[in-house]
C-alpha cells in the first residue's frame, strides 16, 4: 500500500563524504539514493529496510532504497541532497530564488520490481543528453 509523507531533503554525513569521493562513486550513490523512514511508516508500507520504494510528488517520481531512520520521525521521509531528491522538487521559488527543498507532500509505495537509476541514467532520463 502507499503512504503519504512530508519529504525533507538535507545534508547527511554520508552524502558529504560521498560527494568528495565523486558524484559517480558508490559512496555517494548509496547515500543520495536512500529514503529514511520511520519504523512505523515502513510497517505501514509493508517493506523491509533495503527494499526499493517509489517516491512521488507532483514534480516527479524516483525509485529509492528504503532505510529505517535512526531516530523516530513518523510521517516524514528524509532524502539526502542530490539529483535523486531534486527530481521530486518543484522549481517554483515564490519570488525568493529558493525552491522548497523541504516540506514537500509525497507519496511512497513499494517498488519491488523496479531498480534505482545510476546518476548518468537519472540525468539522461531527467534532462536528456547532448
Amino acid at each position: 500500500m502507499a503512504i503519504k509523507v512530508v519529504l525533507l531533503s538535507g545534508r547527511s554525513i554520508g552524502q558529504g563524504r560521498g560527494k568528495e569521493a565523486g558524484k559517480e562513486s558508490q559512496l555517494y550513490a548509496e547515500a543520495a539514493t536512500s529514503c529514511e523512514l520511520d519504523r512505523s511508516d515502513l510497517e505501514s508500507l509493508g517493506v523491509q529496510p533495503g527494499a526499493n520504494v517509489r517516491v512521488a510528488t507532483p514534480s516527479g517520481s524516483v525509485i529509492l532504497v528504503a532505510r529505517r531512520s535512526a531516530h523516530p520521525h513518523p510521517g516524514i521521509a528524509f532524502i539526502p541532497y542530490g539529483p535523486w531528491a531534486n527530481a521530486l522538487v518543484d522549481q517554483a521559488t515564490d519570488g525568493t530564488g529558493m525552491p522548497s527543498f523541504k516540506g514537500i507532500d509525497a507519496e511512497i509505495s513499494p517498488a519491488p520490481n523496479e531498480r534505482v537509476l545510476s546518476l548518468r541514467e537519472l540525468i539522461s532520463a531527467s534532462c536528456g543528453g547532448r
Partner: protein
Amino acid sequence: MTVYDDVVCPFCGCCCDDLRIEVEENRITKIENACVLGRAKFEVYRVDRHTSPVGLQDGVPRPIKLEDAVDWVAETLVKSRYPLLYGWSSTSCEAIKLGIELAEEVGGVCDNTTTVCHGPTIQGVHDVGEVAATLGTVRHRADLVVYWGCNPVHAHPKHMARYTIFPRGRFVRGRSERRLVVVDPRRTDTARLADVFVQIQSGSDYEVISALRMAVRNEEIEADAVGGVPVERIEELADLMMGCRFGILFFGLGLTMSDGKNRNIDAAISLVRDLNARTKFLIMPMRGHFNVSGANIVSTWQTGYPFAVDFSRGYPYYNPGETSAVDLLARGDCDSVLVVASDPVANFPRAAARNLVGVPLAVIDSHISATSTCACVTIPSAFVGIEASGTTYRMDGVPLPLRKVVDPPEGVRTDEEILSAILRRVRELKRGG
C-alpha cells in the same frame, strides 16, 4: 617530508584552521585534526577529476587543448545575449572577483550558491538587520546555544567542538556551563546531544518563532499548541532563552528551504531582537560551502549586492526571484551558462537542471560532477585550499588564508589563471580580435 600546521580546511563554512598536513613527494601522507568531511576531501581529492580540458566532439567527450577550451568559453559568452555565470562558493575570493568582472564584461548574471542555501537569510537581513558576532565571541561567552533547523553533527562536524558547546571559553567553562537546545522536525544526531529538544511540525517554524516572540513579550498565546508544541513548552523555552547570560541562535536550511523562507528569517531575527531587551542574544546562519560567505562578501564589495547580480542593463541589478539562477533557468531566459566550482545539475530542481543542459554549458571545476558530465566544455582546475592558495571567509565573516600544500597535476591551472585567460580572450574578442 614537509609539515604544514594551521591549515584551513576547504570543506564547510567552519573553515577550521587547525589542520596539520604532512606531505611527502607531493602526496598528502597524514591528515590531523580534520573532521570526517575534511578528511574525506584531503584523502580522495586526487581520484575524481579530469587532468585535461574535455570538449564534446560529435557528442563524444574528448581531451582538448586549454587554449581551445578558453576560446570556446570566451566566444560563447561574447555571442550570448544573456549568459549565467553560476557557482563560486568552493573557490577563492580572488577567483570570485574575476568571475564578477567577467560577468560584467559579457553583460550576464553572476549568481552564487547562496541562491539555494541562505539566499532567504540575506533577504531577511535586508528586511530587519542582524545581531551578529564572531565565533570567537560565542566560544568565550555563550552559555545558551540554540541550533534551529540544522544538524551540525552531519553538516558541520567540528562546529560544536571548536566554537560553541564543548570548548573551554574565557568566561564559560565548557559543556557543563552551557545549555544546548535543538529545534527540528526530526530527532537528529545533534538533537540527541541536546539538553532540550523541541520537535516541531515540518513547515511550522514561523508559527513557533512567533509564539516564542509572544512568550518573550509576555503576551498570551491563545492556543493549546503551536506547530505541534504545547504552549507550556514554548513558554519554558522562552524562559530559558531570556534567562541565559549570553545566547546564540544558529539556524540552517530548515528555515530557508521550508514554507515561509525569508519570512522565517525575519521572524527569527525579530525574536533575537526581542530577546535583547531581556539579555544578550545573537543569531548566525550555518553556512555550507567553505567560501559561500566569501562569495557574498566579494559580490557585495564589487557590485553592492550579495548574489543574483544582473549586469545586462550595463549596471548591477539585483532582484532574487527574477535574477536568481533557478528562476532564470525555469523561465528559459539564459542562452549559455558557465558553472564554476559547483554542481547545479545535481543540486537544482530537475526542471531547472533540464534547462541548464539545454543551452551551451561550460564547467570549470576540480571535481567531475553531474554538471560536468552534461557540459560542452569542461576545464579542470586545481583544488583551492589543497593545490592553490587564496582567501576564504568563515561563516561569521572572518577572512582566512587557504594554503597550497601540494602541486596540482601537470597542466592543471588554478581557477584564477583560467578565469584570467577567459577574461583576456573576451576582451580581445570584444575589440574585434
